[in-house]
């Protein structure tokens, strides 16, 4: 069967000629506007965007790379002296910085794992015929639409040992989520999981809806168990899109600042971004902080690269 689509111009008409001269249209009317020309799109959108990116992203990136090899302090008028790799050497041999990286790694693992488990789990639940599915999905997406600062303040109240609803609901009495040095990082991760699981859920839903139904039908005919179906059909087919979610969330979790800064000020919750902020804007060690920012950037790129390679492998299967 040949599908037929409505054609904008009759077969006996030349579209280019009609566009160049609207009076040639069969009914004499002008055709619908073709929109902006490629040239106009380039001048109006692409060039300004590229200029914006160069001025606000590329230039500061290169400029800060230069500063990372100096002893520059933005709070003084003193010139920036070239110090070679001293900043990098000092940072990489600083036990406090390594502690910050360890805290960050722990946070990323807990937070991203939690988001994937919760997000994918909720997506599995939603990937079936249930009443008010659309409304439910929209409501579940709300947390990730909120500001990080608002979420931080909101969870601070929820965790409050005096009047927080979490202790009340769980019957934990005056349990100190944020004042306990060992618990605080997990408390922050829980807030982050609440906020960003919907993002994983959204991508997972897209992946789940793309799994061909006939595979499940075939598995059912073969009397495959639910677990077998999940591990041999669902997970492998959703894995590529789930990996994309993991990449995005890992990058974001690695850079976490707001929520951790607002919720607690424990040394056990000082993720690398908080250390970077203090170094750059409280201590005004501009050169040193640029070096730290580059170390963080390299780490994020390396982790992302590993993920992308893994993603490509998953796709090839």
């Amino acid at each position, binding site marked *: 069967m040949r599908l037929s689509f409505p054609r904008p111009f009759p077969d006996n008409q030349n579209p280019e000629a009609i566009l160049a001269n609207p009076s040639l249209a069969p009914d004499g009317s002008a055709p619908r506007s073709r929109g902006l020309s490629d040239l106009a799109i380039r001048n109006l959108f692409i060039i300004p965007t590229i200029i914006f990116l160069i001025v606000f992203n590329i230039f500061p990136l290169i400029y800060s790379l230069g500063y990372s090899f100096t002893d520059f302090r933005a709070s003084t008028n003193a010139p920036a002296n070239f110090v070679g790799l001293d900043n990098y050497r000092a940072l990489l041999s600083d036990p406090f910085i390594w502690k910050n990286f360890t805290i960050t790694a722990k946070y990323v693992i807990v937070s991203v794992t939690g988001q994937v488990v919760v997000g994918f789990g909720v997506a599995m639940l939603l990937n079936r015929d249930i009443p008010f599915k659309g409304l439910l999905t929209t409501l579940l997406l709300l947390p990730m639409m909120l500001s990080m600062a608002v979420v931080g303040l909101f969870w601070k109240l929820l*965790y409050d040992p005096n009047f927080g609803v979490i202790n009340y609901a769980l019957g934990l009495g005056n349990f100190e989520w944020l004042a306990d040095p060992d618990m605080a990082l997990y408390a922050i991760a829980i807030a982050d999981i609440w906020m960003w699981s919907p993002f994983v859920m959204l991508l997972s839903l897209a992946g789940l809806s793309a799994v061909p139904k006939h595979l499940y039908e075939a598995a059912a005919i073969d009397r495959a168990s639910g677990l077998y179906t999940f591990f041999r059909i669902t997970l492998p087919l959703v894995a590529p899109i789930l990996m994309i979610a993991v990449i995005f969330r890992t990058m974001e979790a690695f850079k976490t600042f707001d929520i951790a800064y607002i919720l607690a*000020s424990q040394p056990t919750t000082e993720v690398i971004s908080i250390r970077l902020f203090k170094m750059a804007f409280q201590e005004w060690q501009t050169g040193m902080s640029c070096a730290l920012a580059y170390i963080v950037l390299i780490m994020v790129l390396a982790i992302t690269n590993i993920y992308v390679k893994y993603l490509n492998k998953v796709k090839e299967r």
Partner: protein
Amino acid sequence: MIVGDSQWLGAASEAGHYVDLTQFFNDNKVGEIMAPATVKYYAEYPGNSGKYWAIPAEGDAVGWSYRKDWFEDPTEMANFKAKYGYDLAPPKTWKELRDIAEFFHRPDQNRYGIAIYTDNSYDAMAMGFENALFSFGGDLGNMETYEVEGYINSDKAVAALEAYRELYGFTPPGWAKTFFVEDNQAITEGLAAMSMNYFAFFPALLNESTNPHAANTGFFANPAGPSGDRYAALGGQGISIVSYSTKQEESFKFLQWFIKDETQKRWAELGGYTASAKVLESEEFRNATPYNEAFYQTMFIVKDFWAVPEFAELLGQLNNRIYPHIVGGEGTAKETLDALAADWKATFAKYGRGK
């Protein structure tokens, strides 16, 4: 002109951002107009150098508020006297402060002894700890030679840290990231018997629309330590002239007007926190608000954190060392302050200060 924090003096003066006001200071005898302690910490840099970069403008320090009705309750007074052997009243010593905090600490009644600063994001916990440190006779170091060994880890400093950590045990639950908002809330929500805070935040405690206990809220200056030393951590700001300003002449005229007795008096009447010695000492000022008497006493005993350009690094190191001890109970006070002394020595050496 710029109204800048006292700890910015070093960074702003060494970097050439502030105009040197030494000549103006000497010509106008500003040192005699303003309370001496405020001149030392809002204006002079380096310490004891005789060089001045700011005029004390908005005076402030860490004081205390308390629940008068709890303190004046006959049953509480009798029980307190029976337990501690002296009358329940606003504390005059840190020993009394500790006893009162312990006495009112009743978690089962949702009533707690004391609210202190514990936030280590910036200088909150440092200011709170300084209230103990200075009154216990300890010090951060030598402001001229930058020696810290034997100062910040002296026996007196160790005792001060132990005292501050002990007070943390009498705070409401979850009191691990608290600054001026939370400490005022401790009073407005009827949580704590006493609460430390900057004087600048005390007007809110007298406002019945923000504090249901306003009529029952009293104030006192930081109490004395075991040896009778009595100091308080400095807040507030001085006012400086920016060296890039094209209006420096007008700025000097403003400062000349600002330091006049009548201007300072009016500044105080309008709610400004004057540092003028004459105004502070006047009966009229001391009786103007319930906290002015405590403010007057405090502004003559203030001491401050390091004002060197690298103060934020020193502050970060202080936070990194004392927070785990105060809040998490890690290590001993002596170990904590020995480690801090080592950090500070390394930082001063890095910037070529001292020997």
